[in-house]
């Protein structure tokens, strides 16, 4: 236990069940982005998985939204300390997108419009753990929350759920993405409170 803060009672504990350590509950949907919000017209949207051999699998918006989609309800946890419970999304499972992708690489770099990147092990994207989401709460995903489509990996801190995602690149070695190179944890498990390098 840490140093007792004289006169600090804490207010939110009753309304915050089952949160990862150091998180608090919010009803809002705060925004965390490194720069301006890009506006991506749907007729210019595409999503590409590039394997370690350079083979590309690309979907345009019509092809992507014609894929089988899932309704997803999950808790999300931002490294800036807020958690939001029971968020509802619609998106395409990465299992579906990887169906015809042949790869022996274990790591993935997600790329987004604007140059943002984040690294994830492939095994964290498969087996029903991750999606490319394009609806939130029954509505098209708002640009400031990553629309038209974002990665959704709810079991990791939310910066891993890259907004405006436009591609996944397979890698043999794990390399740090944008926030990871700026001092954030390379994996980011909220239940282990892996916020920063060394946590």
């Amino acid at each position, binding site marked *: 236990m840490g140093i007792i803060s004289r006169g600090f009672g804490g207010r939110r504990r009753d309304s915050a069940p089952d949160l990862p350590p150091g998180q*608090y509950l919010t009803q809002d949907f705060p925004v965390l982005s490194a720069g301006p*919000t890009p506006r991506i017209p749907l007729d210019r949207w595409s999503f590409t998985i590039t394997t370690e051999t350079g083979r590309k699998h690309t979907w345009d918006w019509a092809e992507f939204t014609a894929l089988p989609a899932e309704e997803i309800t999950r808790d999300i946890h931002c490294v800036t300390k807020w958690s939001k419970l029971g968020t509802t999304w619609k998106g395409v499972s990465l299992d579906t997108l990887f169906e015809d992708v042949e790869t022996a690489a274990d790591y993935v770099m997600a790329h987004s419009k604007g140059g943002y990147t984040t690294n994830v092990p492939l095994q964290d994207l498969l087996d029903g753990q991750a999606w490319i989401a394009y609806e939130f709460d029954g509505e098209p995903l708002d640009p400031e929350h990553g629309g038209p489509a974002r990665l959704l990996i709810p079991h990791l801190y939310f910066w891993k759920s890259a907004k405006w995602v436009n591609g996944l690149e397979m890698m043999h070695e794990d390399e740090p993405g944008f926030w990871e190179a*700026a001092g954030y944890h390379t994996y980011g498990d909220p239940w282990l409170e892996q916020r920063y390098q060394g946590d």
Partner: protein
Amino acid sequence: MAGTALPGRLIWQAATVSAVRAETPSARTIVLDIPDWPGHLPGQHLDLRLTAEDGYSAQRSYSIASDWPGAGPVEITVQRLEDGEVSPYLTDVVEPGDRIELRGPIGGWFVWRSAQPAPVLLVAGGSGVVPLMSMIRERGRLRARQPFRLIYSVRTPEDASFAGELRRRVRDDPGLDVHFVYTRKTPDGWPAPPKRIDVATLNSHGWPPDFAPDVFVCGPTSFVETAADILVALGHDPSKVRTERFGGG
């Protein structure tokens, strides 16, 4: 886009509050003596942890307001959020002599590095001024040559933190300009009615996109979205516009 690696791990340590200072009726600066502070870059933040007697604890991130001359205390400036859990404790309860756990510095993107030669445009909404103030103070201490412009949106004149210090710095430093935007109430004799930040504000009081300034925008989400959209529409390179948005409490 590349950040800078921060070496080592961030360890929780106990800081001692050495002074507190009211900035506005709802914002307070807390001066912290931190025994083992590695130094920070302007724009970085720290994580602070409060613990109740029964062991319940709460963490929040706060931007650092002070620059880092190589030694001395570290200052954070905290805005009270009425429904907040941690901020009212910091603005209303904490006193000199209290100890607070923290770790940092954190963040390698929303920082100004004095080696960057470009002019700098700072755009602040409310308490978003705090990390930008650290940049202004760093610039002043280093007598840096990059000219700075700050556009600072507040509801009323009474809501402006650091107002006296900014006035003094502008008077003494020809390389620093500050322009206030008042959204609810202007000072007496102000030439325009209250308004929100708009194209004209950023066009007249920012740098032209041709100067390729480094731009830092910090404030509530809606403010940052508006300002960043206008900057991109005016022709600023999106990769030169760094943003920090805050929400929650």
